[in-house]
């Protein structure tokens, strides 16, 4: 698998994501700076990692969505490329229009940092094939704005077309509509999720519940490696 992680000013989980990807592929992903103007050739996966891009001083992800390299990411997605956005990356995907809806302030109006459990709503994507349909797994959440919201029409479409990939199965602490934790683009190649599977890839540090996601990705792109 040839993966690239895009680093914005204020991104802070790019190292965590690189560790998780290297764990399953044995190779370091490319780290791209947001001012770069082109993606490397032959990429299988672009990851928009977590953090506080531009300090979250405007809406979370809004500034990053306008950065030079994001235009390339949009083009990559339009060509059928795979893009994973985690936490702030999910917020960027929504702000960039690659996924519908928005991430609002948590219902409690507080930053939430704890483990959460999610249920895999469909296991037939490159992101979720490492899990079983209906399987629950744990990941870390750490966000102030993870309360997924969209209008009724969009929600009906997401649910009707089975584009909700992950749903909080325990407490829905941030107040997301329909307990949505992760959603997919119609072609199933762009996924955004709030919790951090990259912090759960090691038995001694956070457990290995997130590992199947990365193993599934590595298997999906094995031939391309």
């Amino acid at each position, binding site marked *: 698998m040839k993966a690239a992680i895009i680093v914005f000013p204020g991104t*802070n989980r790019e190292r965590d994501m690189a560790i998780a990807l290297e764990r399953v592929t044995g190779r370091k992903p490319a780290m791209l700076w947001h001012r770069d103007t082109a993606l490397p050739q032959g990429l299988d996966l672009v990851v928009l990692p977590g953090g506080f891009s531009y300090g*979250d001083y405007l809406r979370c992800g809004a500034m990053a969505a306008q950065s030079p390299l994001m235009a390339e990411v949009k083009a990559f997605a339009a060509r059928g490329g795979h893009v994973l956005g985690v936490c702030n990356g999910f917020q960027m995907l929504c702000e960039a229009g690659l996924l519908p809806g928005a991430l609002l302030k948590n219902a409690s109006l507080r930053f939430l940092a704890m483990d959460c459990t999610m249920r895999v709503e469909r296991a037939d994507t490159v992101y979720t094939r490492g899990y079983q349909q209906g399987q629950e797994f744990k990941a870390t959440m750490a966000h102030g704005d993870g309360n997924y919201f969209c209008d009724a029409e969009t929600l009906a479409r997401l649910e009707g077309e089975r584009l909700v990939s992950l749903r909080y199965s325990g407490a829905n602490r941030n107040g997301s509509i329909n307990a949505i934790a992760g959603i997919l683009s119609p072609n199933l190649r762009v996924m955004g999720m709030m919790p951090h599977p990259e912090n759960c890839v090691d038995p*001694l540090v956070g457990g290995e519940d997130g590992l199947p996601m990365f193993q599934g990705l590595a298997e999906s792109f094995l031939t391309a490696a």
Partner: protein
Amino acid sequence: MELLPADRASQLAAQFGLKPDEFERALAILGRQPTLTELGIFSVMWSEHCSYKSSRVWLKQLPTKAPWVIQGPGENAGVIDIGEGLAAVFKMESHNHPSFIEPYSGAATGVGGILRDVFTMGARPVANLNALRFGDPKLPRTRRILDGVVRGIGGYGNCVGVPTVGGEVNFHPAYNGNPLVNAMTVGIAPADRIFTAAASGVGNPVVYVGSKTGRDGIHGATMSSAEFDKDSEEKRPTVQIGDPFAEKLLIEACLELMATDAIVAIQDMGAAGLTSSGVEMAGKGGMGVELVLDDVPQREEGMSAYEMMLSESQERMLLILKPGREAVAEAIFHKWELDFAVIGHLTDTGRIVIRHKGQIEADILLAPLESEAPLYHRPTEETPKQPPLPPVADPVGIIPALKTLVASPDLCSRRWIWDQYDAQVGGQTSKRPGQADAAVVRVEGKRRALAMTTDCTPRYVVADPEAGGAQAVAEAWRNITATGALPLAITDNMNFGNPEKPRIMGQFAAAVRGMAAACTALDFPVVSGNVSLYNETEGQPILPTPAIGGVGVIEDLANAVGLSMPAKAELVLIGATAGHLGQSIWLRDIAGQEAGPPPPVDLAAERRNGDFVRAQILAGKVLACHDLSDGGLLVALAEMAMASGIGAVISASGDHGFWFGEDQARYILAVPDAAALLAEAQAAGVPAQKLGVSGGESLELDRIGSISVAELTDAHESALPKLMEGI
């Protein structure tokens, strides 16, 4: 130069907090009247906060050396060797005064400041901890301050992407008008690439990087060196505003530059801003420095030299570069969208010369600014020993007392707080709050991990400052030991009242004596620290609070243990139990007394018991370990049970002193085979007794009663959320 008229100068000196004799001394150094900027420089450099003028004579008693100490006190942070060519860089620092005036910004900038102290030395910050003290939790103001402080710590730490992995919180009415916010950062650096502040090389450029300078925080260091009165909230403009986003950029930019060979010296602009960084860098290197303030990046128009030299705007650093490396450095800082400006150069004059708008605004010989700085041997008065505690009857019974204690402000779950701190960012956090006695964070890419804790028991310190000082160090050592790690060194954050009062200075001196004895006995030297005095409001001092931040290393993270009660284990108590109730939480919260001497600290027993426990853990013979501290044996058992939801059947028995006494040097070990452990303990001369076995859903005490773990957990977890809602 525009010198102040004599009467105006002496009037301003008093306003800036310079004592008359200190002002006279400044005049003698100058040999003339000062400019406004010079007077500002003298007053902040000689403030308690920057000069340690009341505490230095005592701090010298602390042991600071060990073979693994790379850098002791005196630099931005302490540095210890943690093996494999790596060093841990750490320090704890107070932001008490600002956090009272403006809780969110005060706490946030406290975190920002201590982060800079650590990455200034070339370390990537890997963990934040804190030690917080608040007033009576029933007061709405306490809740407002706690809420703001927690949001501020989280707001800053979460954004910069450094996990907040541990800390402690106490409540006591003595902190009503003066909360304590002590923030600690631990970073990791290559042991042979430590950066320091000592400038060298005549002509080398002095470079300003980071955020722009504004008018915030002017005279913050002076404010932090005075008592509070009723009008303290009017001092809000002296509190700085933090920008964690700028800090994150600054961390990455500095670390990127440090990977080149462009830097001669580097220092963050913390308290007293450009003044202290300029003075200290040149002073430490025995150099002179000339600064042109017109070139300082400014956020506001029309700033004077005085304002720029005293501003405490955040997220700024001062660098001395090697000649000709300006372009390399500038490119890095511009990549990270930060200001970069050459604002001066080093000279061989031994003077700091400040130019602004074609005028000389300051011209001071540096050596006497440090060597002639005030140093006080303030009078001390010993705290009288507490009379022995007469026998105290148990007013409520063992189980009801336990249920009350696990829900008491000092012992209830801190989940409401931790849940606002990102403890996982970085992907190396193995033991989070509540999972072990110390936070455990792996060194990225290695098997080894750091164990870190903050500790102090202020009610012990006020009752017996010497024993309390020793206990704080011993508890930090014990908490690290309980994970299996080897404790290596501490940072100390000395929070006390007004040092001009002999009783307060006596507390300080005795606490240092106790700490020094414990550091020596436990091979646990002090490598960095901070002193915060004048923690008084309207004459009421805080409890003396020498907060200790400890760091240890475990060579293989796989050997580290937590405190969760295992499903099937035998429970052994290590250490002698005399049933000491003096100054215990039980005595205060159940019997309604704050009385008696605190538990005695037997440092030889601490060392022996702790070394034994650590060896057992590292030999793989221990499933879980928890040290005994606040609340004693039964609270510790309950904490283990609540961590996993698994109960225990306890056959050992005794009176309320046995269950709730706070005798030191004790641990509970959960092991597969108690008999084997008891035999080894006996051979090692370590007191040990079998308590019972784990299992079931209740904590069952033979002939006393039982309580379900679920009921305990409910009381424990619901207490702080209810307090915060004012219920």
